[in-house]
């Protein structure tokens, strides 16, 4: 297991390093002169020169790249051009919104998907099964930002139960902050839950056909106990894989949903940074988000290998 983990860790580091290289090439080398890109065509030669100095563009690209990557370890990611504060501070503040939002959505989607999948699979062919799977089929087709708009219209504008957007900050207390995150999290969770419920259903149908389920029943275990103690636990393994694969969609979803609800998270930061052409912020936030996706894939692989020893030899 340790050898497997070490191998995967090595390939994870290589992928991460390559990802930083790609981002650096696209944002710093391809444009030619990043300073001109950031300031626009009409910038005077003095301001351009000043920004070039600030960005260290007079130094070789390889050195700049090295400094930037080292910054992910030391926490020094440079200073935002528009906000005039360290990028790491900006990112840390925005993470306090994005991370809880993504986690809340993840918890909600699994909390919805697993019971739905179990009900559908254990009553396969019934009207409950077909109506739940019909709903899941629609859930997959609904764009999360449109669902978010509908939620705002019903629960914030018409019923006035929750705020329609914005974030009071965690210092305003746990309840107001969670209230502000509730609708965005539901909007993110629904399409995810629809996909997961389908996976859960088919995985559970697979396990229910296994010999050990028949053995458990023959030993006198009740249907209920067999289902939850043996079948559901085994069916969760493929669900975990899909959960990992879906993570990049969750990240993308978070970025869009933050813009629907005006939440000051990483997603809004990245869009503000693009409009202001603040490449210093864009490059680091992109890498952080990509790194999160890669890291989650790694953790899922590891969890998978822990659960199924046969996979370690591969």
């Amino acid at each position, binding site marked *: 297991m340790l050898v497997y983990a070490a191998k995967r860790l090595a390939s994870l580091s290589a992928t991460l390093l390559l990802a930083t290289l790609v981002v650096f090439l696209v*944002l710093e080398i391809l444009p030619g002169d990043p300073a001109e890109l950031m300031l626009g065509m009409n910038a005077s030669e003095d301001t351009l020169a000043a920004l070039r100095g600030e960005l260290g563009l007079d130094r070789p690209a390889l050195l700049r790249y090295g400094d930037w990557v080292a910054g992910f370890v030391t926490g020094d990611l440079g200073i935002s051009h528009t906000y005039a504060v360290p990028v790491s501070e900006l990112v840390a503040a925005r993470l306090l919104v994005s991370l809880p939002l993504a986690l809340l959505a993840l918890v909600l989607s699994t909390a919805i998907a697993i019971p739905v999948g179990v009900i559908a699979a254990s009553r*396969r062919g019934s009207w409950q099964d077909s109506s739940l799977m019909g709903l899941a089929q629609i859930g997959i087709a609904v764009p999360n930002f449109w669902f978010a708009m509908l939620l705002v219209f019903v629960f914030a504008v018409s019923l006035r139960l929750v705020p329609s957007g914005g974030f009071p900050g965690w210092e305003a207390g746990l309840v107001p902050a969670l209230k502000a995150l509730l609708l965005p999290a539901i909007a993110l969770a629904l399409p995810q839950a629809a996909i997961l419920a389908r996976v859960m259903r088919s995985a559970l149908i697979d396990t229910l056909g296994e010999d050990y389920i028949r053995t458990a029943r023959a030993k006198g275990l009740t249907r209920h106990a067999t289902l939850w103690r043996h079948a559901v636990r085994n069916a969760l393994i493929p669900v975990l894989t899909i959960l990992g694969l879906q993570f990049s969609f969750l990240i993308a979803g978070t970025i869009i949903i933050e813009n629907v609800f005006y939440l000051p998270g990483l997603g809004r930061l990245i869009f503000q940074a*693009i409009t202001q052409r603040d490449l210093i912020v864009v490059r680091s936030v992109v890498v952080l988000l*990509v790194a999160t996706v890669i890291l989650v894939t790694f953790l899922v692989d590891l969890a998978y290998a822990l659960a199924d020893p046969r996979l370690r030899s591969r």
Partner: protein
Amino acid sequence: MAVRAFLRTLRQHRALAVGGTIVGLVTAAAALSLVWTPYPIDVLSVADRLQGPSLAHPFGTDHYGRDMLSMLMVGARTSIAVALLAVGIGALIGVPLGLLAAARGGWLDEALMRLNDLVFAFPALLSAVMITAILGPGAVNAVLAIGIFNIPVFARVARGGALATGSREFVLAARVSGKGQLRITAEHILPNIANLLIVQGTIQFSLGILAEAGLSYVGLGAQPPLASWGRMLNEAQTMMMMAPSLALYPGLAIVLTVLGLNLMGDGLRDALDPRLKRRRSQGMAP
């Protein structure tokens, strides 16, 4: 004969029939918009703004007085064009890479698959963010970003399918008869994994429609005056109190199209691979 067989397939696979009909209708509306829309969408007529449904405007008009039906038709064209081109990019680059990885194996396979993992870690939205940062927003960015994300998906499917097919007897027979790897891949492996690729193409097409809507909603996709469902939703958001229907129709159009494509994909999978269908009814398929 062929028509009858086709009709029988549709009767046996209702998901395919329903999905195919929806997709056909949306495609027809999009194609029609190339030559005709009820009203021009680049002419603003403030006097006609925010009208309800009527005979002249079945879906009403938007806040600039543009006919919603015409906007939805052009939006369908944008969505389909972007998603189709993105699937094309993904398949044209991804499939040969996957086939190459499967045929050569060894370090090349390993390297290509690691590259795949890398590209897969960049959600289309992040690629679009980077492309927009240097080129500015536009529909072409959306095509590129979604297309790039599609490459590893197709490469993975092609590689998996080729590896599974490559060990079958008829491939072995072809090799014994002296055919080279390239001919074997073109004549035996590709036709055998075509079904897999078609089904995956349908799935990526529907994901592409969703991704295009998301990108143009946040302003990274199609730019005005080009109509796009995502942009229409973006503009409708500020008008939710006054005219909720502006946000309703484009959203429903997206849901309907994606639903149709997904049903079509499910139906195609069943129709193209009868074994899968049988196994599924026994509860063993994925």
